[in-house]
């Protein structure tokens, strides 16, 4: 079996397994091109409609926050950006999502490739308990058959540096991933997501289980990652949304009520429902 190297993990590789990959130069998105174009998206879990006819363009190399009360569909929406919602039984989807012009739900698209290009960080840090810090970071590459030790070492350091964890763990790489603090574990999970060189990071309440200091570190990290990645973050913490994001989307009972510049939305929301929610006058 041939050893996979860096070239196998070029960003912007084509998501369709049937299509031939385009070169990075050909497929490099222009800064103005949105990362995701979502058109009339509806999602059902069995009989229950979780997302109702949502259309939105998520900008590339920017941070988009999704806010809304519990059960408004924000996590479902996030998950459908890397096809993770499909893992729930009896899910049905209408509408379409284009990722840099390609239909994310096209018949030739491999969900596994989608999930490599569109990484996910969850609410609760979930390092693999039996693996070391190093193994946790590299697990995605190894599952993809990468064996080149030098390449793996480079990617290990690069990912841990990008997740602002390298200085804290560089002498403890063989220690268990569970041996570090909660905040460090969350940054380890971010490093693991970054190791496969995704273009997008989806974050589902990444700080809700962390103390304020660990939260501040993650927020600072999110701002630093903004230059290289498209980031979509779901958060219940509106102060966090206003601090870290460039754009904010407000969801309510499955509908996208308002989407706009974060400063604008938190200062002068266009919709009464947004105003009522962000000022605490809901219900």
């Amino acid at each position: 079996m041939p050893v996979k190297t860096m070239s196998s993990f070029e960003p912007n590789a084509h998501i369709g397994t049937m299509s031939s990959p385009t070169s990075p130069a050909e497929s490099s998105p222009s800064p103005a091109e949105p990362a995701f174009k979502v058109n009339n998206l509806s999602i059902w879990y069995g009989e229950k409609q979780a997302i109702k006819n949502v259309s939105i363009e998520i900008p590339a190399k920017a941070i988009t926050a999704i806010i809304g009360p519990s059960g408004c569909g924000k996590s479902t929406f996030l998950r459908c950006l890397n096809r993770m919602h499909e893992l729930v039984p009896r899910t049905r989807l209408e509408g379409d999502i284009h990722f840099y012009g390609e239909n994310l739900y096209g018949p030739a698209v491999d969900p596994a490739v989608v999930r490599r290009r569109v990484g996910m960080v969850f609410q609760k840090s979930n390092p693999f308990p039996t693996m070391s810090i190093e193994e946790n970071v590299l697990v995605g590459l190894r599952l993809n058959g990468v064996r080149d030790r030098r390449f793996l070492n480079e990617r290990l350091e690069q990912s841990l540096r990008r997740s602002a964890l390298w200085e804290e763990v560089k002498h403890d790489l063989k220690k268990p991933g569970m041996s570090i603090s909660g905040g460090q574990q969350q940054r380890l999970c971010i490093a693991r997501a970054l190791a496969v060189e995704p273009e997008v990071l989806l974050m589902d309440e990444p700080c809700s289980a962390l103390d304020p200091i660990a939260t501040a570190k993650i927020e600072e990290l999110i701002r630093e990652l903004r230059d290289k990645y498209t980031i979509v973050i779901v958060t219940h913490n509106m102060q966090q949304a206003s601090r870290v994001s460039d754009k904010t989307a407000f969801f309510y009972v499955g509908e996208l009520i308002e989407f706009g510049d974060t400063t604008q939305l938190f200062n002068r929301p266009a919709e009464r429902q947004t105003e009522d929610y962000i000022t605490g006058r809901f219900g």
Partner: protein
Amino acid sequence: MMRTRHILREFDRALDALRSDALMMASLTDRNLQNAMSCLLDRNPELCVVTVLDEKEVDALEKKVDHDGVDILLRYQPVASDLRQVVSTMKLGSNLERVADQAVNIAKRSRKLSMEPELHEAFALGPLFVDAISIFRDSIRAYADGDVALARTLRERDREIDQMNRQIADDLTVKMAEQADRIPDYLQLLFIARHLERVGDHAKNIGEDAVYAAEAEDIRHPDNALAYH
């Protein structure tokens, strides 16, 4: 302005108390302006003391509004219209304190004038007083009621007050040339007109903050092409 109740009633109470303190400041400042006018036109030096004492109340309330405003920002981290209400109320407090300062300055100058023979030209400041108090009251009404239409009229009315002030300054300059022995007294009148012109400026500022609070629109300096945001 109709506002839905906040889930945290404590927040509504805190915001209401803040606005209420600012409106109390406005009432005291209004009385200060009237007393200052009476000081000059009725030659009533007693009112000068009242004006100074009222101004101390206004100063204390300004500090309270600032303190409580910061407290609300810290405790509740308000956004959107709530944030704008807190910010504009704190700015209202600063403007009111300065208006009250102008009233005290007028009262002190009027007291000095009341010790000199009466100057007929003092009555020429009457219409300026009336207009200054009128624009001030309307600015407070615009803030309290969120009356954006009223607030938007204040810029033009401030210009009219500026024009009246210029006219009074020209007239007094002529008088000073005619009656050199009363130059110090005419200068007091000139400064009083200038203080009233400043009241108009503050009223215009309050109107601008009222528009910002109600509609998040910044209507300040419309002729300035420079923008840093």
